[in-house]
């Protein structure tokens, strides 16, 4: 079971790979769309990469609720 810091670090690496944002800028209160240059298509990539990395299922209906990095970290911690 991953810790909160480990999930954040993993998401930061994923966002860096997909959107080119430096990992240190991927913080809990950051919005994927507004702050991290992750549009709706790239968000699908983030979700698929996170599912594989954290062995979690993130249903399509749930993706719209993951507005910030913190939302995603909490979802993964609760459901992984």
């Amino acid at each position, binding site marked *: 079971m991953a810790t909160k810091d480990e999930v954040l670090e993993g998401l930061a690496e994923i966002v860096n790979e997909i959107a*080119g944002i430096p990992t240190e800028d991927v913080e809990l209160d950051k919005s994927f769309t507004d702050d991290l*240059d992750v549009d709706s298509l*790239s968000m*699908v*990539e983030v979700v698929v990469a996170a*599912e594989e990395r954290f062995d979690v299922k993130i249903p399509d209906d749930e993706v719209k609720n993951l507005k910030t990095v913190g939302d995603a970290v909490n979802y993964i911690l609760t459901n992984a």
Partner: protein
Amino acid sequence: MTVENRTVVVTGIGAFTPLGGDAATTWENLLAGRSGVAVLTEEWAAELPVRIAARTAVEPGEILPRPLARKLDRSAQFALIAAREAWADAGFETPATDESSKLAPERLGAVIASGIGGVTTLLDQYDVLKEKGARKVSPHTVPMLMPNSPAANVGLEVGARAGVHTPVSACASGAEAIGYAIEMIRNGRADVVVAGGTEAAIHPLPIAAFANMMAMSKNNDDPEGASRPYDKGRDGFVLGEGAGVVVLESVEHAEARGARIYCEAVGQGLSSDAHHIAQPEPTGAGVARALADLFERNQLDKAEIVHVNAHATSTPQGDTAELKALRKELGEELDHIAISATKSMTGHLLGGAGGIETVATVQALYHRLAPPTINVEELDDDVDADIVRGEARALPEGRIAALNNSFGFGGHNVVLAFRSR
């Protein structure tokens, strides 16, 4: 403002080709007679009957940031790089949608064509589907593989709102795009249009398919000598990749902003063969009709023409059929025309050909030099025209014009005309 038959000029050029990462390097290598063809070193190439191609001289990943590059098919990457060069070369510093832009986005268009579109994206993502499952197919697949993707991405880059278009006519696509763009400006729809062609089809499937059509050279042992238009020993085309883009502009608009003008884009001539889905019409009648159309619909004096950048792909039938058409339509005027087959050096870029060859034609007029045709060791007996062989040749002073021919599977014939200023 008159909205009909406005004069169109070329004010910017950009190229990303097997001979260079920009237009100037490509031109230098064309003049030097260098070949961009090499042996394919990928593992998949070993099993193919054709193992040579002309890859771009520079990898687009060295230029575009990774997050952008991974959302673009290789063909769109090429087009974007060439379009950025042409846009800056024309003296534009910001997208038209920027507040500081003096050019209104509603007066700017983009017309970029490709013959096959995002074929490598389609095939690569099919591999992902089979090997890793549906969930792993990239959500960017559709916007990457659609044939209008290069045009749409260039339109986004420069902020074009007058219209973004993608004519598709196999190997005539790039030329058709530039012809379409000329007419957008002529009839008043736009003042500036970014236009060209791109292709990225070096993948085992297209190569196997073209090879099985008996269309490609199998001269695997001599890659640099494989593309040999007009030579007796020619045995098919060599696949190339890359993009060529020009900025076209109404002469009034270009002069008002003090832009450097390379030449006039006189217009286009078009026809279709109604002969065969893939074979050229052997007498050249279809190409001759495109030439006749050019002279009927444009003010262009045959005596002004001093240079033709020929379609000449190095196929046994096509090269000579094109020359027959030029002789039929130009008569004795053909004797003072320097013909260059630059595919001898770049390979055949399919839908990108009209793009890079228009850039070469514009450079030829501007610098008054016709690039050489390499690998013509023994001229075909049926060649009844003045082929520039071996070395580049100076073009005359005064008002001169040049043609760029492009023909595509399906029987599409496009002739573009340019004139010095």
